[in-house]
């Protein structure tokens, strides 16, 4: 998997116990590290607090999109039925909003849901297939049953030794370097 071109780009501490991870995360948070993250096979409750992550903006985005959908629905139904081409239908008013309510609702939900999907992709930074976790062989473990704290040290601010020391302090037994395979071929194709 790795060859001589592999480059160390960070440090990884692996845990078997979720409690240990949460404690370690709190320690790292308090130590004031920047480029670090926890990787877990499933969402661990309370970890965001331990990591000091800000609340997600996703709800606001979704609500806004839903409201946009609602406005689109109102404009679509009313505009097309009453203004663009006023056709008399069944003796109902041209702007028979009562009959448009289902559409208002559905477009609200549709827009909101599209925003939710987009939020998942955007905020979770999906669509980035490359990761040093693959190269380091850690990905398999953290999608199955192990928990990891990953430090990225590409900017060189933090020394690997300091990180290792801190991880050991948190009781981590399995500390590995984060390796990245250098691309041999830099062409797009």
């Amino acid at each position: 998997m790795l060859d001589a071109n592999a480059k160390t780009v960070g440090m990884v501490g692996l845990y078997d116990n979720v409690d240990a991870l949460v404690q370690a995360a709190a320690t790292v948070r308090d130590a004031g590290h920047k480029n670090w993250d926890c990787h877990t096979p499933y969402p661990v409750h309370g970890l965001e607090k331990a990591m000091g992550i800000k609340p997600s903006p996703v709800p606001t985005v979704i609500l806004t999109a839903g409201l946009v959908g609602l406005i689109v629905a109102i404009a679509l139904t009313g505009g097309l039925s009453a203004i663009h081409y006023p056709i008399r239908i069944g003796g109902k008013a041209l702007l028979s909003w009562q009959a448009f309510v289902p559409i208002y609702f559905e477009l609200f939900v549709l827009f909101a849901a599209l925003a939710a999907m987009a939020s998942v992709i955007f905020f979770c930074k999906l669509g980035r297939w490359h990761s040093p976790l693959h190269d380091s062989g850690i990905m398999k473990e953290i999608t199955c049953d192990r928990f990891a704290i990953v430090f990225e040290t590409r900017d060189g601010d933090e020394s690997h030794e300091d990180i290792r020391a801190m991880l050991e302090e948190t009781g981590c037994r399995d500390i590995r370097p984060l390796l990245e395979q250098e691309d041999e071929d830099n062409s797009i194709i």
Partner: protein
Amino acid sequence: MSEHHGTHHHSHEAMRLLKEAALPTHIENFAVPNGMTRRGMLKALMGASAALALGVPGCERKPKRKIVSRVVGPEYQKPGKAIYYSSTWTEGTCPYGLIIKAVDGRPIKIEGNPEHPINKGASSSAMQASILSLYDPDRLRAPQRGGESVSWEAADSEIVAAIQRATSVVLITRSSLGPSERAIIDEFRRVCPQVRHFVHETIHDTPRRTAWKKIYGTDGEVLPRFDKARIIVSLDADILGTDGAVLENIRTFSEGRRLDDATHKQAQISRLYTLESTMTLTGSNADCRVRLRPSQMGGVVTALRLAAAGDDHAMHDMAAKHGLPRDTLVELVKDLHANRGESLVVAGPHLPASVHANVAMLNDELGTPGHTLGWNPTPATLPVTDPGEVEAVLGQGADVVICLGVNPVYDWPGGNFTDLLGKSGLSIGHGLCSDETSSACSISLPSSHTLESWNDAEPRTGLRTLCQPVIAPLFDARQEAESLLVWTRSLAGGKAETGEQEDWHGYVRQRWQAQLVAEGNSRNAVLAWEDALRTGGRIRPNSVAFPSLDRRVAEAMVATTPSGDGDYELVILPHPTILDGRFANNGWLQELPDPVTKVVWDNVATISPETARKLGAAEGDVIAITVGGNSVDLPVLIQAGATDGVVATTLGHGRTRGGTVCVEAAGTNAAPLLGRSDPAVPRVAVGIGIRKTGDHRKPVRTQKESSMHGRPIALDGTLDEYRHDAAFVKHRRHLPAPADLYEPYDYSKGHKWAMAIDLGACVGCSACVTACQAENNIPIVGKEQCDAGREMHWMRIDRYQDGTPDDLKIHHQPMLCQHCDNAPCESVCPVNATSHSPEGLNEMTYNRCVGTRYCSNNCPYKVRRFNFLRYHGARLRDPVQELAFNPQVTVRGIGVMEKCTFCVQRINDAKYKALNREEILRDGTIQTACEQACPAQAIVFGDANDPDSRVARLRASQRSYHVLEELNVKPNVTYLARVRNRASGDHDVGGHDDGGHEA
């Protein structure tokens, strides 16, 4: 005639131009199904058999098309503009006046001539359907000799040679022949004395004509005047269905029942008693109805005569013996007593002569002749030859047999004509299609259609009308009279009797011109002739005195009244739509429901529920009916109101040749049963044998449920009720005040189209249904699809029946799109394919429709029709059929919903015309097809915003109501409740009532 601004006649030049119309023209924009090129259509118009593959019919875009500059454009015929011709309908038993609408050289619609004194603008289904027969692809296309096409010259020379050699020539024609046709037959017989002329018909009134001739001493017919009668008694006479001048009967009958709200307290309408053997259309309109066996008719008349003279013992005996409703008969006698001179009695054409003699005496005793009965010494039909006489002649072997427009191989009474034909030398069949007779003959000659023929008719003394062609024969066809003329001329060796006319057109014209001049017409012959063509002929009948009755002869005839014995009796009636089978290849008429049974595409043995119980037969069980050794298998149809012990069936089905439609319809030929019991009374049989065969053949009805289930749909009241309270309908129903969620649209500006239908006038004849079909390009779907519940009629006549067998109440209710203001169909269409016009029309835009059928589901009247399959496409076997389409109406393709549009094409046309000329659109200018056809004038269409319009007045009538008003859909078809003049409890019909029961 002023409305028919385009009425033209045909000169030779016109005929030439019409033929040029067959060349590519600059006809634009008429809707033809996809895949069918205009060129192909025009080729068909020229008679070429263009075998073009038919693609998907529908209203989709077509590829780039051509437009043609003619060499010389005809002066009067403009693309897309209608021309109207007056003519005469000669296919039925009574010749009615026609106005034929032709667009781009194609006749596309037939209407009644409003100036014609008999039908006064009305038309029947068969008249309407004539258009379809014109473009029938099954028509014979060229003379045939032994299955090979031959030229007319070859056929003529062979026929003429054969006649010259012959010692015995038999000419068989139908009975309704015009004066010119009769003249050419006479001439033919003068030239060839060896010719014997026989008249063959299965639906004739020979027993009646014979009786009249004997007792009045002169040939002629009695004309009932229903509008003048207070009491009408019909003994098995289907006066509103098939007996006599039906269109006139319906009109005068409904005139005698008109109501005026202003004088409702003194309202007087006629009362119709029917004493009949099976439920006929007339019986379904009766106020009082008695179920009677044909064999009891004579006895009842005698009893009535005695009772009218004061001795009612015989009547009571009769009622007791046969279980007849005594009260109704007592009422009848009372009514006849009280209305001397204002009643009339008619008897069915199939009843024995003795009954007619008896009825004539009863009428005489009631003082009706001259009042409610008129006399016509020149009936439109010739007396029918006794089949026995024909059989005797043919049995000896004739050298030449000529069958002109008759089909004896199919409908010979007793059914053995093929053998007789086999004994003859040369046999010639002359007909529209290759039918049973022409395919059995050695030579078969194609006849031209009425709309391609010159002819005339004299249905009443002095009423002479002309029939003119409106299109050149589509195929290599020639009319029968012209054939006779050609043969006569050849046989005479050029010695012409009537002028020098070599062609039939000239023959008719010359006769007319001579007659017009002889009658002292001030104008010259040519102008008088052109006038006659424009107006339809000489349209003022002379009045004729009623002949006096020879009582001695009549009494002697009555004494011969045959007695009926046996459990079962049989009545054979003409089929209500295809008559004796002459219209059997017409899909519109096959698919038009029988107005009483609602059966389509079939004939049945109608029996009463009690008879069915006795026979152990369920609907559809096939029974074998045996009369005089001949047996016929028919499926049972159980009809409430039929007389117990009577089996009724109809002629016209069971065709084996004659076109795809009549063969598809199948059914059973009842002709073998004719005349087997008593040759003098061919259509009635007593002592018949009935046996269940164990087979099953389901009669297909378009209406499967008959009861109204107590719902207020077709409303009626008694005359008493009406006199007491003209608004009895409104007061009978308690509707909550309607609440609208939305502010209703304002329809007060411009037009607001609406229709009113008077259920009191409508008799259910269904002419409107076919008129609608012809006007709106409505397809037929066939028996199987009708059974599946997919018939396409935009307009239907709902027939409800409730009550006991002896007191059956039948309602006929024309049902069509109600054009609701709050149309429930509109709000459910997802694509706006159905919407509302500012003039109140519920519009259906076919080209937008995607076919969800939700609109139909949500229509409480179920008047929407869906193209489940390619109905037009499946039936279009030949491009010639496309010529029948109305170019003003889109031809709908598969998967599209359609429904009544209130004939929006007529509305738009008239409206634009008025707008262009800056005129006011007058009430009556726009007539929907159904309104125009209706003989009872039960349908009125117009602008509800015009307070003086007929429809606005009817909408305001006290009798008016809306069907399903409680749904608040706000229909724009208003129904006027029917008022029945029932005898029970309403004894003051006699006219001595001073004006009702004012509280």
